[in-house]
């Protein structure tokens, strides 16, 4: 039987190649969509992990996507805000308030510059020199190490530590006292965010966020729970459409392979009639047709997975701004499902072809 399979493959390789190409196109689209969707899901989990259960209070005009991409705008809150909150009725629910000012500055050799993060924490006093903690990339860009000093916008800065794991993973950041950051960034009296921490077990977080917003006009309280809800909603929508997309892809594969199998069955009718006449079992012939289609599908599935690599890379770079590749774990499902769908699609024309009366077929020939 394999002799027939190989012989037919060699004779009609263009047709086989077309079938495999059609499957490959569909599979590459599905694998790319799955990789991007999985990456979006992972990024939500990653964000949740980084932010914990804090509440973020930002100026209402803040572009959060740019904010999380470390691109900070001029939007500001007054630095009197922590005091306002501490003296208000919401203070009973708030355990900690951390005010921060963020800003991008071009400094050192790093193309994108460094990020200044001003924090109102208990920094050590070093006289006229500003203490700072640097992320490793920031240290490299500024060409300094622990104990080293450098100048930033006229400010003398001393490096207390180069942190391998800086807060929030901000590797390009120079963490310094809030007042120093306001001087360096020339934004006196301004804040970018307030990070509120607390036990919100006995109060609805969304209600608390509403109270904070009422207290500070022009501010927006962003809760992790709310962000997660919105992003999970987006991911769920993407996954729902991904199900429809996968189903559509499966139907397309089935139609292409089914049509090719039916066309082959029609053209090979005489051959099939002959094989039945010389004693081939119709079931074995149908299995041969089905196996041929499954081979189409499997080859197309593997090619599709390979084609998805550059496609995913390109799409991820343009949509997510991050390097991404399809998981190797998708190879087996891609090949297996493409082969299965192709086999199922070919089975009906194969079974019909081999069930024909060979005497009619042989006479017509």
């Amino acid at each position: 039987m394999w002799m027939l399979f190989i012989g037919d493959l060699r004779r009609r390789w263009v047709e086989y190649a077309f079938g495999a190409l059609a499957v490959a196109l569909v599979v590459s689209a599905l694998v790319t969509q799955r990789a991007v969707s999985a990456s979006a899901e992972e990024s939500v989990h990653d964000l949740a992990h980084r932010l914990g259960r804090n509440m973020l209070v930002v100026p209402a005009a803040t572009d959060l996507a740019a904010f999380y991409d470390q691109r900070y705008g001029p939007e500001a809150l007054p630095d009197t805000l922590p005091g306002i909150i501490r003296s208000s009725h919401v203070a009973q629910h708030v355990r900690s308030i951390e005010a921060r000012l963020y800003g991008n500055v071009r400094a050192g050799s790093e193309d994108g510059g460094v990020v200044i993060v001003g924090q109102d924490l208990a920094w050590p006093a070093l006289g006229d020199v500003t203490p700072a903690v640097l992320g490793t990339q920031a240290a490299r860009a500024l060409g300094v190490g622990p104990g080293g000093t450098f100048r930033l916008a006229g400010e003398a800065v001393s490096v207390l530590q180069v942190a391998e794991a800086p807060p929030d993973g901000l590797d390009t950041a120079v963490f310094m006292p809030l007042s120093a950051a306001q001087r360096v960034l020339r934004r006196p009296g301004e804040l970018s965010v307030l990070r509120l921490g607390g036990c919100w077990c006995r109060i609805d977080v969304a209600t608390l966020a509403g109270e904070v917003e009422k207290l500070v006009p022009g501010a927006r309280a962003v809760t992790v729970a709310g962000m997660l809800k919105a992003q999970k909603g987006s991911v769920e929508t993407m996954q729902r459409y991904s199900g429809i997309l996968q189903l559509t892809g499966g139907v397309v594969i089935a139609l292409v392979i089914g049509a090719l199998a039916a066309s082959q069955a029609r053209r090979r009718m005489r051959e099939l009639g002959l094989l039945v006449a010389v004693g081939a079992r119709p079931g074995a012939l149908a299995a041969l047709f089905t196996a041929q289609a499954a081979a189409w599908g499997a080859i197309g599935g593997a090619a599709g997975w390979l084609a998805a690599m550059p496609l995913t890379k390109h799409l991820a770079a343009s949509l997510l701004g991050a390097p991404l590749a399809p998981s190797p774990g998708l190879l087996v499902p891609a090949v297996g499902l493409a082969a299965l769908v192709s086999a199922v699609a070919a089975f009906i024309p194969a079974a019909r072809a081999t069930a024909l009366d060979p005497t009619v077929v042989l006479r017509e020939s």
Partner: protein
Amino acid sequence: MIRVENLTKTFAAPGGGEVQALAGITLRIDRGEFVAVVGPSGSGKSTLLFAMGGLATPTSGQVFLGETRVYDLEREARAALRRTEVGFVFQTFNLVPYLTCLENVALPPLLAGRARADAMAAAEAVLERLGMTARRHHRPAQLSVGERQRVGIGRALVNAPRVLLADEPTGNLDPATADQVLDVLRDLNRGGQTIVMVTHDLRLAEQAGRIVRLRSGALDLAVPSRVTA
């Protein structure tokens, strides 16, 4: 060897109604016979041949191959019977175009589950017997029509069937090539091979051991059915 008892076969006519292809045929063919089945077009010759080979299920009646009631067998068992007990030769050869002569001839033993080397050796032996060894690696399109029919006969013979059923084996051949093919069949018959050949060519039929005439699906008994071989 082959017994056909009261065989009828009815087809549904395209415009409605029925066409009776075989109308109660009873026939016996002994081991080693060479029988030619003749008759006008539509007389049921090929239907009878296919029914004898287990390919066309009759409407009623029985076909015995040896002691086996062919149509009492399940579909799979009938396929097995065709693989080993029956060899078909067709007017249009019906060779698989993308296989070589050797591979075409090796198909039946491969389908019967024999090892590839064994099947190829059997095919080589048959092609040698038919004088086709030099052409064994050629594809059908590279052969003359007479050579193609020799390959077709080789494929029918390779599993050493009890009976060779030939449907107009010379129908596509010129007279000289037809004679050559008939010589092959006569040689096989002289070697003990039972052959049933459908033909519309009385000149060729007369070279068989017995002639069976069909008219409108029934045996035509108005003329003598045996001639000198």
